[in-house]
């Protein structure tokens, strides 16, 4: 083991043990975090999220200008950026990439983010103009989405499926070796435009589903970084020699989804009663060992628009009972919680909820289903209660709002509120940031009061990291900043 550690420093090969596998490297179709966080190492976007999630900074576009009506944007492209195949990036590539991302197709889960883009025009080799159907405040944030990464025009002559498994981007790393379902090894892009970067020779994302094994890999020096160690293991990992635990702010929110279409959950009093009955503080302690924070709003804490002052329904059994007494189902009724199999955290939460609601006389059954079924049931509205984790992909709250609260959202809880719809719509088109924030705060308070969904906790991004890894940072949106990372000799 000793040998392998010094090797890591000598060769600057970083191994990250991850809970998710990388299955798709085509930016427009990859949807899971396992895909996105690998895509972000290979591809880059016009704008780039700031590390703290507070907004965007220049990426492959060095600057931009908005027309006065807000419907046309001109971007100046960075010069001297080369694709992994040696070709220089020009406006042609940008137009191709944006057009590809915004063209609707079955398997493009992000396409809805780019519907506002009407047209992409090449002004010259290093200038493009985007015409929009309406003024669109989140545009810059949307353009930082990995789904609209810049690819070489016409996939550099490859077919789409060839490109998918052997992608070419402008990022600090290029795909070296990819054993699907096992690991993907990214190697240094020697032609990278940020001079002197990246420092690492390679980054390997190793898929390890079992949380114990992941942390053991870091303890044994087999991997340098364990993505998402379990909260329980944090204390013992911290005690391990040469290993520390990094906690990065993240947009992660764990929430309870109630099906507002179903009786008696369509009754706001029932929902409120259920919310009052949940002891979030106890959950933070028992389930997360203090490695999380109880959530007051359904919007992530580290996202623009988060209203700190949102008053949630705090744990109060007396109030819960009172609410239930007021409701249409004052007595006993039964519910089913759908739980993703193989997810100990959700299962634990479900058992806690089960026990909490039992005190209200609600008879709760657990139904363990595989995660796809849980998701498709949610889409189909075929559930009573379920739990989900949400992270945001862009620094603007619009995606979140659309996705979670608007009546047209395909994954909502059946909650419909014209006022909320109106606020979201208005905020999206509003150029005035302060006004937007006010609108979003109002939405959050409405949601907190009517409890169509119950926020539980905000989770930080936990990483067990060997001390030898220098400069490892993860943005609030979960993006790994790996180009600065280096591996030092271990004592």
């Amino acid at each position, binding site marked *: 083991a000793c040998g392998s550690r010094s090797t890591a420093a000598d060769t600057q090969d970083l191994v990250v043990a991850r809970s998710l596998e990388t299955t798709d490297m085509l930016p427009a179709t990859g949807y899971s975090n396992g895909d996105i966080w690998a895509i972000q190492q290979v591809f880059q976007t016009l704008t780039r999220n700031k590390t703290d999630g507070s907004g965007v900074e220049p990426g492959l576009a060095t600057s931009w200008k908005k027309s006065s009506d807000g419907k046309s944007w001109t971007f100046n492209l960075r010069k001297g950026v080369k694709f992994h195949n040696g070709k220089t990036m020009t406006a042609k590539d940008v137009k191709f990439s944006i057009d590809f991302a915004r063209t609707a197709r079955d398997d493009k889960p992000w396409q809805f983010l780019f519907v506002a883009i009407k047209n992409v025009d090449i002004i010259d080799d290093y200038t493009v103009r985007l015409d929009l159907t309406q003024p669109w405040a989140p545009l810059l944030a949307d353009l930082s989405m990995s789904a609209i990464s810049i690819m070489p025009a016409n996939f550099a002559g490859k077919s789409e499926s060839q490109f998918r498994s052997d992608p070419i981007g402008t990022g600090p790393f290029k795909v070296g070796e990819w054993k699907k379902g096992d690991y993907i090894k990214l190697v240094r892009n020697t032609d990278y435009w940020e001079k002197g970067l990246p420092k690492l020779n390679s980054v390997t994302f190793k898929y390890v589903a079992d949380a114990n094994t992941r942390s053991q890999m870091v303890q044994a020096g087999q991997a340098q970084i364990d993505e998402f160690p379990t909260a329980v293991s944090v204390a*013992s990992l911290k005690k391990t020699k040469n290993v520390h635990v990094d906690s990065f702010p993240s947009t992660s929110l764990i929430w309870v989804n109630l099906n507002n279409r179903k009786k008696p959950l369509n009754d706001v009093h029932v929902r409120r009663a259920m919310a009052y009955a949940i002891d979030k503080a106890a959950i933070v*302690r028992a389930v997360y060992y203090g490695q999380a924070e109880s959530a007051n709003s359904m919007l992530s804490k580290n996202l623009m628009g988060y209203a700190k002052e949102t008053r949630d329904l705090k744990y109060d059994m007396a109030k819960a009972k009172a609410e239930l007494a007021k409701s249409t189902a004052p007595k006993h009724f039964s519910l089913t919680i759908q739980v993703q*199999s193989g997810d*100990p955290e959700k299962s634990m939460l479900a058992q806690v909820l089960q*026990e909490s609601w039992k005190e209200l006389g609600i008879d709760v059954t657990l*139904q363990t289903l595989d995660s796809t079924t849980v998701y498709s049931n949610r889409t189909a509205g075929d559930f009573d209660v379920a739990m989900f984790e949400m992270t945001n992909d862009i620094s603007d709250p619009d995606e979140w709002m659309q996705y979670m609260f608007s009546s047209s959202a395909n994954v909502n809880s059946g909650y419909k509120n014209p006022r909320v719809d109106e606020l979201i719509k208005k905020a999206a088109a509003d150029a005035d940031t302060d006004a937007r924030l006010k609108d979003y705060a109002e939405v959050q308070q409405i949601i907190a009061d009517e409890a169509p969904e119950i926020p539980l906790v905000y989770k930080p991004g936990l990483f067990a990291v060997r001390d030898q890894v220098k400069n490892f940072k993860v943005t609030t949106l979960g993006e790994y900043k790996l180009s600065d990372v280096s591996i030092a000799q271990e004592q």
Partner: protein
Amino acid sequence: MPETKKIPVAQANKNYARIRLTGSKPRKRSHANAEIVIGCVLLGIIALMVIFAPLLTSYDPTHQSLREAMLGSSPEHLLGTDQYGRDIWARLLYGGRIDLFVAIMAVLTPLVIGTILGAVAGYFDGIVPTVIMRLADLVSSFPFYVLVIVLVFVLGNGGTSIFIAISAVSWVPYTRISRGETLILRDREFIASCKASGFSDIWVLFRHVIPNIASQGIVYAMSDIVMNLGIIVTLSYFGLGIVPPTPDWGQMMNDGQQFLAAGVYSLTVIPTIVIILISLALSFIGDGLANVLKVRR
């Protein structure tokens, strides 16, 4: 008249009639019985504790008190509490109920079905035995766990599904065992002598063949019970076990699993020890039975 012709019985000779040598009696029987007794006592204690769980603990095995999570052993909580603050001792006692029930039922059913199918397959000739054995081949060429997992997936979680899934798969070894035994038995003279007595095939099959071949299957069933407990645990690992909050050892071990990395072993170890004890008890019973039944032959 013939009576008078009978050669008289030898007069008891003073020297050699003292000790009558009789037909050999099972020699190992007492020893084998000791094994069975040890096994049954051990298993009996566990079974009684499980059945009379309410007498041995005042805690509700599903009652959570998150504020008392992960306590060590103390007079109030004999074995401490788990991450939900539930009493581990109570969960251990109540947890055996469903596990033992499912494990035993999922042995009895295949035992009966498999033994009958195997006896039929071994006793008769023709198409029915062929069909049975082909089916057995098919089921057994399916990896055991894969089929169980897929079946549990189809049927949904819970004791009943696990029982059905295991039964649907595990009749095969019993069929094989019983067929093999029947094939041997079929050539034994006593089956021929039964037929010569004019008994119908069905009569011979159920009255003579099956009772005589069942023992092997029963011995195998002993280790099969432990295997079933193992399956329940494994299914729990894949999130397909008994549905919470019903207490169950598989869930207990699996819940404990996430604490292994944190160096907390007791949550997993405690139910494991119980299963090991059961395995030990069944091994005693199985060996004892095997000896008793072997000597009988």
